[in-house]
Each structure stands twice: as C-alpha cells, then as structure tokens.
C-alpha cells in the first residue's frame, strides 16, 4: 500500500493548540439581514434531505450558496458580503430553480474550470454544467447521465485512476410507491463511471440499504478511495453500514468480515471525516438518532476495522445540551472544521426532529463541539450562539465573508434557513488553501493537504460528498493557533507530493500542482 510519508504521527495530546484555553467563537445570527430566505418544504418525501452547496461561481473568491427547497424551488444565492463584514446574499435566476431538490453538491465534472453541480431530487437527478457567471444548464443528455426517478439522498464523487471524467455515487432511499409497506423497499444506490466525456449507465450497488450519506475516502491511505455509505436502519432489512472497494476496472465489492469490516446498524444520516486522533488516517463521525458514532481505525491500515470512540471523546451528541428536553437527539449534517482557529478540528452537527416524533427531542439544538487538546470535545453551541431549535437538515461551515473565520449556514425543514457570521474574535491564525491542477480533476479531489507547524501536522483529505445532502468546494480552511506561519504541501491524487513551502498565516493561497503557493 501507499502509506505516504506520514511524517509525524502525533498523539492527540501532542496536537494541542498553542493557544492556552479553548476559545468559544462568537456567532451573530444574521438570518434576518443576510437575504437567504429558503425553506426546505414538503411532507413525507422530504423528511430527509435539505442540503446546501457552497462554492464560488462569481469569481470573487467568496462562496455562493445553493439551497435545496423540497417542494419549493432550489435557490442559488450570490454572495455579496463585504470582506469581514455582514453577510449579504441575493437570489439569482441561475437555471437551478428546480423543485423536488433534496440536495446539491458542487463539482467541476468536465474539468473546464467552471463549477458544475449535481442536484439530488425526489425524482430525476440532474447534473448541471456551469456556463460561467453563476449560470447553469442541464447536462443529463449531453453527458449521458441517467438521472433515474428515485428518491436520492446521498452523493460522492472521485476520479478513478487514469480517468479524465469523475465517477459519481448516488445514494437513494425508499421506494416512494410503497406507501403502505415502505420498509425493506430501499431502491438501488448507483455508481456512475466514466464513458468517454460522459457517464456510463448507472451500475447498481446491490445490496442497497437506504443511504443518507456517502463519501469516497482513502481510509487506509492506499491511494485508492473506497466508498463509505451510511444507511438508515429504519428502512432496510438485513442491512448495515457499508464500505465498497472501488478498484479501477473492477466491479465494486463490499468489504467483508474477513477484511475486518464489522456490521453496524444505525440510523445513519451523515458522514464527517477528519483525522481526529492524528494517526495519519481519516476518522469518521456518523450522525444518527440518539448516539452518534466517532470511528477510528482500530487495527491498522490492513484491516477495515473501526472502533467507536464517541462516548470517550464526548462527541456522542446524544441529547440536547440546553436542558429542558432530555429526549434523544436527531443528527443530520456533520462537518469537521476549525471554527476557533486553534489548530484543533471542531465538529458541527445540524440537529432536528424528523417530523414530530414524540420520542425524540423536539427542541434539538445544533451542536458545536469544540475540539480540545486532549482529543475530546466540549459542547459550545449555546455559548457560541448557534443553538437553534429549528428542524435542521443540511449545513455548511464555510468562510462566507472572506475573513478567515468560518461562518455557518443551516437549512431547516419547513422553516427558513439560518445564517450565522463568525465575529472573528479568535486570536488564532488561519490559512485558506485552494487546490488546482491541469487536466482532469482540476480541484484535486482525493488529494491530501498537510499543514506543518513544528512537529505538528494537520491533514485534510479533499473529498466531494458526505455530510447530509450537501457539500462545499473551494477554499480549505486550517486554523494555526498562535503560530503566525506554517508550512504546507499537497499529496496530489496521483500520489506525487509537492515540496513543503512556508506561508504566512491569515492569508488565502492557491496551491497549484508544480508551482509554489501563491497568495491571493
């Protein structure tokens, strides 16, 4: 296997930030003034989904937002926020205004340097080609994409070795026609592999178990990502969490018990990934109802065995932390980011009752779990000001106003989306890095970015997928703590590594393959 130069495998304790105490970021709720007014609406068919895509299509370096609307039309919001200032968005007519949209992911499918989109729907999925200036055109026919008429709920993308066109995975949910007995009716997930400059017919990933999140991830740093699938046990029979081996030129194959894979049955709803324990391998946070899971590699890279450390890490996010409602939580989108720039990954979880299930919390605040020096997490959602009780679904933790502080947008079911601006009070330094390479896969999906500060190395796998029904593509954020500078390098998807290069903190850098980092 290709275990690349994992220079220093530090313990969580060694990965402590240079700042003395964990700092709680301060968020301002700017929903009323930001101009984002979408609601994820709909009945039974829209109890899941409600994703948001964050990506720059205007060319100003600040991400636009595309919000799924369910029975209402999806809406693309142009980012008009002044740098460091209040969040401002305006709705565009962009060609994405379809109804029945459950989720959205940005991806430069044709590698022309203009962002394209994948729209998941309860109905036909649609791939949209970016035409520039935030305009998008349906490309199903041009790219040979069979959008099928299913209830789509999960997405992931990768570029397989030697391919100039991406491979997409789309996860689906219940057979909508089985209204009286929907249980056990999970429709097939599908793999869309390249066929020339387009997609081959979808390959059914059977068995399929009502997936709500997917992620291509190189779990053992082999150089070939596998496809993790988080499934909703509410609807499958005989199912479990899954991981598919996606070897080039070979049919997908599920990891088996002989390879170390252990069945896990949860109400899988979202996947977030980062290297929590600094062992050089990605770890996975899985949202569910009641207890969430935080899985770390248990027996090294040769065995696909994971152990759950959520309880010990205080990352279980099991019930509302605000008091008053002790019923279990319902978690959806999850995302690791460093919201206080202290150099330790934090965890954001969007929460909300499925509908009005009385056995689960109805006032279920979103979590903002701050990563601590000892490898555990501390809840700070209420102190940070993001403890909304709306029925959250998708979310994005992203720098919306270009100040290096991560803001938050959350899509809610049957009520308006919410936007919070990070006030930027953090004393920590930060980096924003964007990957570029010529040819296919221009944004470097599958690469690893490494940021080194002395003996400490932060690593981020660049992925497309996961979360709940939405993702972001553009700048990749790193907190540096008290260090005003850091070294960076990229392990590109082809396995080549760039040289370490020193960059000053608090800046945006383009990392182009074969070139030195370039400040923007």
């Amino acid at each position, binding site marked *: 296997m290709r275990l690349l130069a994992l220079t220093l495998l530090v313990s969580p304790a060694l990965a402590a930030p240079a700042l003395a105490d964990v700092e709680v970021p301060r968020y301002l709720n700017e929903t009323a003034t930001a101009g984002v007014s979408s609601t994820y609406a709909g009945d*039974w068919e829209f*109890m899941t989904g409600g994703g948001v895509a964050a990506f720059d299509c205007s060319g100003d370096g600040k991400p636009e937002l595309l919000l799924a609307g369910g029975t209402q039309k999806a809406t693309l919001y142009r980012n008009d926020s002044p740098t460091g200032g209040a969040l401002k968005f305006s709705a565009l007519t962009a060609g994405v205004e379809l109804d029945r949209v459950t989720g959205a992911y940005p991806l430069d499918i044709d590698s022309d340097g203009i962002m394209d989109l994948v729209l998941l729907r309860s109905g036909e999925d649609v791939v949209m080609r970016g035409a520039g200036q935030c305009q998008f055109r349906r490309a199903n026919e041009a790219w040979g994409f069979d959008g099928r008429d299913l209830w789509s709920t999960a997405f992931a993308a990768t570029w397989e070795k030697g391919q100039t066109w991406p491979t997409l995975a789309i996860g689906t949910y*219940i057979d909508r026609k089985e*209204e*009286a*007995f*929907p*249980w056990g009716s999970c429709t097939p997930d599908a793999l869309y592999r390249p066929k020339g400059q387009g997609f081959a017919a979808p390959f059914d990933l059977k068995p399929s178990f009502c997936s709500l999140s997917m992620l291509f991830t190189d779990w053992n740093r082999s150089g070939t990502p596998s496809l993790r699938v988080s499934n909703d*046990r*509410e*609807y499958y*029979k*005989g199912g479990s969490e899954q991981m598919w081996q996606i070897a080039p030129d070979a049919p997908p194959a599920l990891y088996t018990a002989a390879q170390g894979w252990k069945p896990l*049955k949860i109400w899988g709803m979202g996947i977030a990934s980062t290297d929590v324990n600094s062992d050089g391998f990605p770890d996975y946070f899985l949202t569910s*109802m*009641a*207890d969430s899971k935080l899985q770390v590699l248990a027996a090294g890279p040769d065995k696909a065995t994971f152990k*759950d450390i*959520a*309880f*010990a890490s205080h990352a*279980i996010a*099991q*019930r509302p932390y605000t008091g008053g409602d*002790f*019923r*279990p939580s319902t978690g959806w989108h999850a995302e690791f980011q460093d919201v206080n720039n202290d150099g330790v990954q934090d965890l954001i979880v969007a929460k909300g009752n*499925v*509908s*009005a*299930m*009385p*056995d*689960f919390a109805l006032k279920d605040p979103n979590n903002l779990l701050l990563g601590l020096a000892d490898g555990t997490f501390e809840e700070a959602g209420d102190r940070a000001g993001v403890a909304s009780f709306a029925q959250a679904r998708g979310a994005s933790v992203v720098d919306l106003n270009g100040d290096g502080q991560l803001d938050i947008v959350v899509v809610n079911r049957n009520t308006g989306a919410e936007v919070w601006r990070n006030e930027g009070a953090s004393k920590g330094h930060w980096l924003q890095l964007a990957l570029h390479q010529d040819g296919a896969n221009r944004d470097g999906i599958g690469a690893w970015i490494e940021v080194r500060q002395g003996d400490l190395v932060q690593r981020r796998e660049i992925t497309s997928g996961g979360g709940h029904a939405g993702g972001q593509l553009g700048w990749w954020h790193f907190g540096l703590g008290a260090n005003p500078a850091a070294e960076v390098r990229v392990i590109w998807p082809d396995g080549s590594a760039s040289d370490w290069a020193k960059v000053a903190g608090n800046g945006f850098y383009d990392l182009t393959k074969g070139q030195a980092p370039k400040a923007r």
Partner: protein
Amino acid sequence: MNRRKFLTAGVALALLGGTARAAGDTREAVAAQVLATWLRLALELVRHTPTYTPPVASRTLAYIGVAAFEAMASGDTSLRSLRGQLNGLTALPDRAAGQGYDAAVILNAVMDLVIHDLFSNTGPTGQHAVQTLTARLAQQAADEVGADVVAASRSYGATLAAAILAWSRKDGGAVVENMGFPATYTLNPAPGHWVPTSKIVLQQAPLLPDWGKNRPFAMPAGDTCTLPAPTEYSEDPSSAFYAEAMEVYTTSQSLTDAQKQIARFWSDDAMLSYTPPGHWVAIMAQVSREKGLDLTAQVEALARMGVAMADAFIGCWQAKFQYDLIRPISYIKKVIDPKWEPLLNTPPFPEYPSGHSTQSAAAAAVLTALFGENYSFTDESPTPDGAPTRSFASFWAAADEAAMSRLYGGIHFMPAITNGQDQGRCIAAYAIALQTRA
C-alpha cells in the same frame, strides 16, 4: 348481526399475507384480509417504532389480539367475551339489538383505531403507512355493504376500540418515556448486580425497571409465577456462579456454525426485527395459514398468544428487577477474560431470567394447547439478516432452541434459560385457561 361462519377449513386465509383482494371475495375473506393486513402493518410498526422494545411490543400485540377477538365475539354467539376474565376488563359495549352489522367493517374500524393509537408515536413513515391503509382498507371493507350497515358497523367499532384503549391506559405500561430508559436510576453497587454493558448513553440505566409492576392480563400479579433465586454470586473459581460463567465463556469459544445460526435466527433485536413476541405472532400467523383456520380461531389464537406473551414479559421483568443480576459480559470481562466479546449484543437490562426463554415458553405452551404437541413447521419469519429458515418438530422444540440461543449468543447463564422456561409455562397456564368459547 347474524352469526357468520367464517371460512371453513378449505378456504385459505392470508394472515400476514398482504392486501391484494381478488374479485368475488366473500365477506369472510374480506374480513380475513383486513385482519391480515393490519397485523402485517402492526409487526412492521413494532420493528420501526422507537419505543418498541420486546415488553412494549408484547403489550401492544396483546391489546391487538384482544381487540380483534372482541370485535368478532361481539357478534358471534359461539365465542365468549374476555370481559370479566382479563384483569380490569369489566365492561365492553354490546352491539345494538336489531341493527345490521358487518364483521369486516367492524374489525377494520377496531384495528384501525387501536393500531393508530398504540403506535401513535411511530415516525412519519409509519404515520403515512397507517393513513394509507386507513383509506385503503376502509374502502375495501365497506365494498358492497349497505351504507347504513357500514355506518353502524364503524360506529360500533369505534366504541369498542375506545373501550379497549381506555382499558389499556390504566395498566401501567401506556406511557413509555425516554425510549423506556429512566432519566435517573441508582445502580446497586454491590458485586453481582447489573451494570451497563454498552457505551450508549440511554443504556446507562436499565430498560423499563417498573415493567414488572404493570397490570397483567390474565395472571393475577407480576410475581404470581415465582422462580428460584439465581445462583449465589461469587468470583471464586470454585464457585457455582463462576462455573456458570465459564459455561457461557467456553461455549462461546467453541460455537459451531449451527449454533451461531441459531443465535442469530432468534436474536430478534429491538428496532431491527419484529422482536421475540412479534416473531411468535408471525409463527402463529404462519400456522393459521397452513391450517386454514377460520377467522374465529385466528382471533382466538391471537388473543391467547398476546395475553400469554405480555404476561410473560411482566412476570419476567418483575423477576429481573427483583434479582438484578449481572450479565455474562460484565462478569466474564471482570473475572475471566477482559477481552471477551459475546456473539450477540447484550440487551440493556438485568440478566435473570431470560426474557426470550420465558416468553417463548409461554408462546409455545399456548400454541401447543391450540394446535397440538407435535405440530412440525418450518419457521419462515423474516429475520433481519436474512438467516435461513429453520424447521422444528414442535412448538416446544422451537421454544427450546430460542432459549438456548441466548447461551450461544453469550448473553445469559443457563439458570436464566431453564428457570425462565419454567416461569413461561406457569404464566401461559392463565392464558390457556381463558374461556373463549361459549
């Protein structure tokens, strides 16, 4: 309504068989389809409703069985109502003299309302399914029936369902909060008592510690069928308790493939299966199909089975929290092998006696009383992981295997199994003694 003889032995019923209705179906077949479809939905809702752990499922299946029985008994002079026989069931409404009724419409109304109520906390998909069937079956049941008869039948069904539900709300098990796990609970710190066996937050307290205080259906009280105290706790390698733990441990180390299949076949995990009582109801429905039972026999069996299994869980839980015994995983990890893991996930409540053993024995006793000592069958109940079907020479053979599966699974010591079965037999006698025929 005049008494109708529903479905003779030559007419196959479709209990748990689906919703399709062939043209020219008799009214009797319509009623049977209504029952089959609602029962199928109830078992799916057991699997998919958050609070439906095995004790809760047993309670609901009992009320469904009694409700179906009373819906039929109210117009069938060959049946004897259970009012006055079941604890707390003192009064039920009668049909109006001289009014025409239709059994299928009544049965549908009762099942609709009872299931809707008992599964009121199911999720949006379950709610959607109930609403879909409500509309579909109301039309199906009323097809070709006069409007006045439909109206009177629905009205009576609603009255009967309301009475059954009112009775159900006073049994102590109607409200299940926090998935059945108490918000606060003080563990007994003495060695040998139950301690949490997982890192799941809810399960840091045991499931339904007061369930044994619920009003039983047919047996007089939760502690009517007592069982011997478990073996005295000891960590001494020469002790009997240590030997029992070693039996679990050594069995787990040498499990055959057949034993693993047995453990998984009977695992019947909450939230992943019909649960043990649902599994046995599915067996009963299968036998009903195989034997071509008429509808009166079906509802009679459903009521007796439900009552026996619900009482079994009450009696079992009473003993579980009386003795509060440690689980094998906790003892073995502490005393024998800290790295030991059983084949099955250990349920989050005390060990003694084994719930599956108690309630499977109760179910087997009822089915044996109804269908005989040597009824051989192949259990085709759906299993979560698609385990192959298993064949049995008798209901007791199935119950014995279900009980032993808990040893193979590493979640029970043998006394919990053998004494649990004895308790189940004792409890079932009260359900078997119910007078259902006039």
